[in-house]
């Protein structure tokens, strides 16, 4: 009993040292995860078995991952949101959930890299956002060029233009030099 209390007290003490930037990252990840789950369950009864199970997985996994961003429980939370979204046949809903899941994943990834009580430099944030944008653009291009034709969805012609623009933007994001040099930036 005493050791349990001590471990809880230690956990609370550790959380007290977590920096604001860390909390901001973890909060953003938690919010986007909850939003993804709500979007996935939108239009479905919440008292069903699948939504209940996936919501529990999202809750437990998300809570553990928020407390320890370098844990592996985030996989359970993201899998819960993804499985919950499978009930939907609406592609925009699926895309929305996918983007929110990516945001959650990237926030946890950066939070795991930064020391718990440390500050986060601007260049670290821009670099992470830049690569997350690259992943989103690559996913957009692959979705428009491969997945939707595979699914037999009737895609208007402008989606091809959008896909090409996404590829061009991807190249631009990956190859255009940074605006901030390490010597100037603080």
């Amino acid at each position, binding site marked *: 009993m005493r050791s349990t209390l001590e471990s809880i007290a230690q956990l609370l003490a550790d959380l007290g040292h977590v*920096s604001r930037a860390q909390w901001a990252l973890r909060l953003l990840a938690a919010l986007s995860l909850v939003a993804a789950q709500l979007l996935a369950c939108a239009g479905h009864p919440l008292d069903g078995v699948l939504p209940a199970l996936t919501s529990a997985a999202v809750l437990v996994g998300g809570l553990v991952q928020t407390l320890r961003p*370098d844990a*592996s429980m*985030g*996989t359970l939370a*993201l*899998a819960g949101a*993804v*499985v919950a*979204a*499978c009930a939907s*046949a609406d*592609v925009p809903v*699926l*895309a929305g*959930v*996918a*983007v929110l*899941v*990516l945001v959650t*994943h*990237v926030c*946890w*990834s*950066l939070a*795991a*890299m*930064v*020391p718990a*009580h*440390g*500050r*986060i*430099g*601007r*260049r*670290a944030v*821009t*670099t*992470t956002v*830049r*690569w*997350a944008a*690259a*992943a*989103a653009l690559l*996913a957009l291009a692959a*979705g428009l060029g491969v*997945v*939707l034709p*595979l*699914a*037999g*969805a009737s895609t208007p012609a402008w989606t091809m233009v959008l896909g090409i623009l996404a590829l061009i933007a991807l190249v631009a994001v*990956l190859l255009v*030099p*940074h605006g901030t*040099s*390490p010597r100037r*930036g603080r």
Partner: protein
Amino acid sequence: MTSSPPPSSPTPALLRAVAVGVLTAVLAVMAGRPELLVLGLPLLAWAVLAVVRRLARGGADGTDLASVRVRSTERSIAEGGTVRIVVDTPDASQASTSGSSGSLLGVTVPLPAHAALTPPRGSRADAGSVPLTVTARRWGRYEIGPIHVALSDPLGAYRTQTRLDPVMLRVTPDSSLLEAPPNLPAPIGVAGVHLSARRGQGTALADVRPFQRGDRLHRINWRVTSRTGTLHTNATFAERDTDVLVVADTLQDVVAPGLEATAETSLDLTVRAIAAVSRHYLGIGDRVGLYDLGSRIGTLRAGTGPRQLRIIVDTLARAHRTSGPVTRVQKVGALRGSTLVVVCSPLLDDRVVAQIGELRARGADVIVVDTLPPSVGDLFSPPGAGAGRDPQRFWSEAWALRRLLRESTVRALREQGVPVTLWEGPGSLAPVLLSLSRAASAPRMRRA
């Protein structure tokens, strides 16, 4: 200082992305609904970018993350100064201009004692390079580190960590300019800036007297000559330098109970006083030596000029702060008569008091700078100063009694003609030196 980290390994984030991406693919195949692939595409794309980037940089074996190095703008700073420490990858600048995005660095430095770090907890993460600033509050040697560095690719998919050796920093004591008059009671040199009581070559007017053979013509006072009708000349005081011996009492390092982490110790005050006195007298051309009655600082032969000041300050910065009380007193050796001896001491050891009396008996002009911190034995210290105080022990009261006992020592020294002045910064010595020089030039009663 450069360090090559061990090979990087996949992070839980990469495993998570792959697992969720594969799960959506399995679900899409099992359900026969290809549109479900949309759910996992961003995470799969994220994982693919990470793996491709790693392979493109030739890091299949985990050596894609560059080595890290630590640089500091200064190796030696003055007390209260700030130094910038930068941890970066050697290719950080090239990476930013080529668009290949530098690695993410997470740096953690343990908080050194008596120093302030920015950011306050010594942890920061950034891309390419991570700057930290250290502000030293006290003189001495600082070991900033070991520096723990977590290094990852810009996506956070592969990570490694390494530990860099500490950055050594030397903090020299604050040698603020002493506010003291240049005149001394008895300068003993040949040429210098101190006014001596003897007549000779100088600038300070001593007298106007009748011209004698051998007097310089340019010293003739024409006004007096025209008024009196006989040649008169200006007589001046000779200007000389002197020997200054700074004696450090480092037998104890005393600090107020309960304030060990924040308050200044007697050794702090001693070192600062020595630095200020040395700077003052070396600045006006005197020879200054240093003698340590303990063994924390060390002894230096007398010397002159900026080089001697640099040697003294460097020696002070290397003083051993942490060693325990010193039991053996190293007595001052041969001394020229009328040497100005400045003893910096908390006056807690009778052997030091005896040594002061001996120096006085040898003909030296002795000044004692009291370096016992005012907070020691102060029962009226501000609230919170005694935080962490053990109610069963009465250290503050004991020190208050010790301070009262010490008053009799101070009084006895003053009665023997040894001025004792409290070290309160650059203005501490001015009144003592002025009174000493006045006493030396005052008319004396001739004994029958």
